[in-house]
């Protein structure tokens, strides 16, 4: 029982000590940018591959430039994630406070 009590106290201590970087707003912003960045890098890479060197067709080739078109879809998806992150009400609220 006493051991359990100690853990409880330990948690409270952390609550007080928690620095602003750990706040959910910052995490969710960072997660949004992180994901948007990676999807955009992949999308742009695939578009470039599709434009510069239309790859050797795969076995089940359907006759269209997969890298170019799906790369574009990914660029759009990356922009949507980025836009939503930038426009999020949390970010605006955080800005007003700051």
């Amino acid at each position, binding site marked *: 029982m006493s051991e359990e009590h100690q853990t409880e106290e330990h948690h409270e201590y952390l609550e007080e000590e928690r620095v602003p970087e750990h706040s*959910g707003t910052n995490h969710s912003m960072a997660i949004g940018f992180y994901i948007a960045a*990676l999807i955009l890098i992949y999308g742009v890479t*695939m578009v470039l*591959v599709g434009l510069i060197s239309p*790859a*050797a067709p*795969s076995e*089940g080739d359907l006759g269209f430039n997969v890298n170019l078109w799906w790369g574009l879809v990914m660029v759009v998806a990356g922009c949507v994630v980025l836009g939503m992150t930038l426009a999020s009400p949390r970010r605006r609220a955080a800005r007003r406070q700051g």
Partner: protein
Amino acid sequence: MVTVNESWIDYFIIGVYFVFVLGIGAVLRKKIQTSEDYFLSGRSLPSWITGLAFLGANLGALEIMGMGAGAATYGIMQAHYYWIGAIPAMCFVALFMIPFYYASRVHSVPGFLRLRYNEATRGFNSILFAIFMILLSGINMFAMALVFQLLLGWSLTASILLSAAIVLAYVTLGGLSSSIYNEVLQFFLITLGLVPLVIFGLIDVGGLAGLKESIGDPQFFHAWANTGSTDNPFEVQWFYIVFGLGLVQSFGYWCTDFLVVQRALAAEDLAASQRTPLIAAFPKLLYGVLAIFPGLIALSVLGPKIATAAEANNAVPYAMAYYFPTGMLGFGLTALLAAFMSGMAGNITAFNTVWTYDLYKPYINRDADDRHYLTVGRIATVVGVLLSIATAYLALSFTTIMNYVQVLHGMFLAPLFGTFLLGMFWRRTTGWGGFTGLVAGTSYGLITYLISLDDGLGASMARAFFAWLVTLTVTIAVSLVTQPKPDNELRGLVWGLTEQKEAREEAWYKKPWVLAVTVLAITVALNIYFW
């Protein structure tokens, strides 16, 4: 064997992923000091993040490769694991369990068992859990190795060793301090990787009608129609699908797997916490399609290449190699690797935690300083990865990895679910009642499996159901003849002795029951469509 024309572009794409994952891990590790911080992130995340992370934590080798393999072996019935085998339990967790977990002191399974039952129950469960994690981690490692084998053309052994090295690097370089980041990312990667596979495949085979025609087995396209008898691919009647899978296996997994439940507890408030499993349930429905169809498409276009059981495991990566050119292929395989790596890292970390804090500390060396336990944990990580190499080979001996995991769930999770359920809802349950019930149910699952060695999915459903019944019966019987715990020891652990707050949510479309009814209605519609 399917081979691919690998190129530096594919390696570049995979390389970028590792740079990102290790980079964010290194950045976050500096800021995050405690494990509490990175698992719960200060309980401050919005529900869309915890919801996608909840699903990301669930999407491992089993949910992608295993389901694809199952679909290639059993057809559309495999979708039961996504629909009836997940959605009702996810709704139940959201509506009833999350408020309870939020209000009680329950943060881990062994912790709950020690407080609610006794030390013996906790010890027994900890040992089982450690073994379970190593077995699951082997499956993720095996799946990862299959992808490397396909991509690099190495032998399975070399691919397994490479996977082991990568996971070890990922865990030691702080990959887990960014687990929520990577789980949300994983959701996007897998979706963007599987959607084109299903679209291209369906265009190629001529839609659902073309797929039916080329596979030529009408039973492969019925989820329920043939379950009045055992004359269906699962060889099981509807009763075991509903109660074995839909009740015991599924509720057991979603209610007690804290690798997943923890994600919901990281949400900013109780309402967001309750919404987490429900937000995850919608994409989960979609994944029933995204994981099942690549398996069916692979069966249709690659037929003989995935006819043997071992090759069925490869259905999804083979389908990718078949449809995706260089570039797209690198991306698709990266999405798979991401899922398997974080799945395995999660298993290894859970193993290291349970070994260090639930076995080593209480039973072997009680009074050492924190640094000592940290070292023990690090050694456990290395040992865990080495043991997983052995269990990766074990995964090879089963029909598919899907069959293997279901055998394990029947033994490990079904009895535990019985113990949890009684402990939480019946205050008369005693410490020794819980212990003997758990031991009896687990032994039942293990012994009946070893006698029959039947790893069919239907057999696993039935075994799980009976293991659960054995646990319930023995726990109730022993509880009635042993001394119950006084109420004050059960406060915060038993329903009715735990004060729960009502979640406040103004927006109607965010109310848990609205989301739950919607997702259940879609589930029913899908089951009717694929009747």
